[in-house]
């Protein structure tokens, strides 16, 4: 905490102390809420797309309130790209795994042969796996769109 205060005091980033402090306090809760929206999609409005956008918006908020450098040091570009590819792969991979296990493509009840939870429970859990994949992909695409557009593509400095 002290380190952060000193960094804010002596560095040039950020418009004002009020904005940076507010963002510093808000971002963890925004990310927690994004995870909640993804995980709680079974019981309330929400799901992968919405939660992914909220997660991505937290990084965009850091980029807007501090500066571009702070945003990209919180998550490396390589990590971001890996997460995005992983998200799309989770979705297609779960579908393919269902087909390999002897069901139809994206028929999650076939995964019952892999781990016996019961076919109906697997249909519920398969939706959850897929939503996690969607959330990862959407978050990474949002963040990388913002990074590339605001820095003009060289990811060096921007805004």
């Amino acid at each position: 905490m002290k380190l952060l205060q000193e960094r804010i005091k002596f560095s040039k980033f950020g418009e004002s102390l009020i904005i940076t402090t507010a963002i510093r306090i808000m971002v963890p809760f925004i990310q927690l809420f994004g995870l909640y929206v993804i995980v709680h999609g079974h019981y309330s409005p929400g799901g992968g797309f919405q939660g992914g956008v909220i997660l991505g918006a937290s990084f965009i908020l850091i980029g807007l309130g501090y500066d571009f450098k702070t945003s990209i040091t919180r998550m490396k570009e390589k990590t971001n790209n890996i997460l995005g590819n992983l998200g799309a792969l989770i979705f297609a991979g779960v579908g393919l795994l269902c087909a390999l296990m002897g069901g139809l493509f994206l028929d999650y009840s076939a995964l019952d042969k892999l781990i016996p939870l019961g076919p109906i429970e697997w249909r519920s859990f398969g939706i959850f796996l897929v939503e996690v994949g969607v959330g990862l992909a959407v978050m990474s695409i949002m963040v990388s769109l913002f990074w590339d557009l605001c820095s003009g593509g060289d990811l060096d400095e921007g805004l």
Partner: protein
Amino acid sequence: MKALAFIATLITGAILLYGTMDFPAWGDPQAPASVHLSPHYIEEAVAETHVPNIVTAVLGDYRGYDTMFETIVIYCAGLAVVSVLRRSRS
């Protein structure tokens, strides 16, 4: 060439509009979608998938293809922007 493209667009649009005339009226209870598809989702979704939210059940399970290709579309959009804009410093 532009006029030709415009005429082709107009003709395609007219055909599509003509095609919509055969659609059932909006909210028609006798439409095929309302007769056997929607009641099935509403009555059976919770029993078949154990997901209390029917929207999630339809989105993630019954229409998994749709959601998968929505994700692929977003992924391709991001890929296109990165491949157009991203350039390395060296």
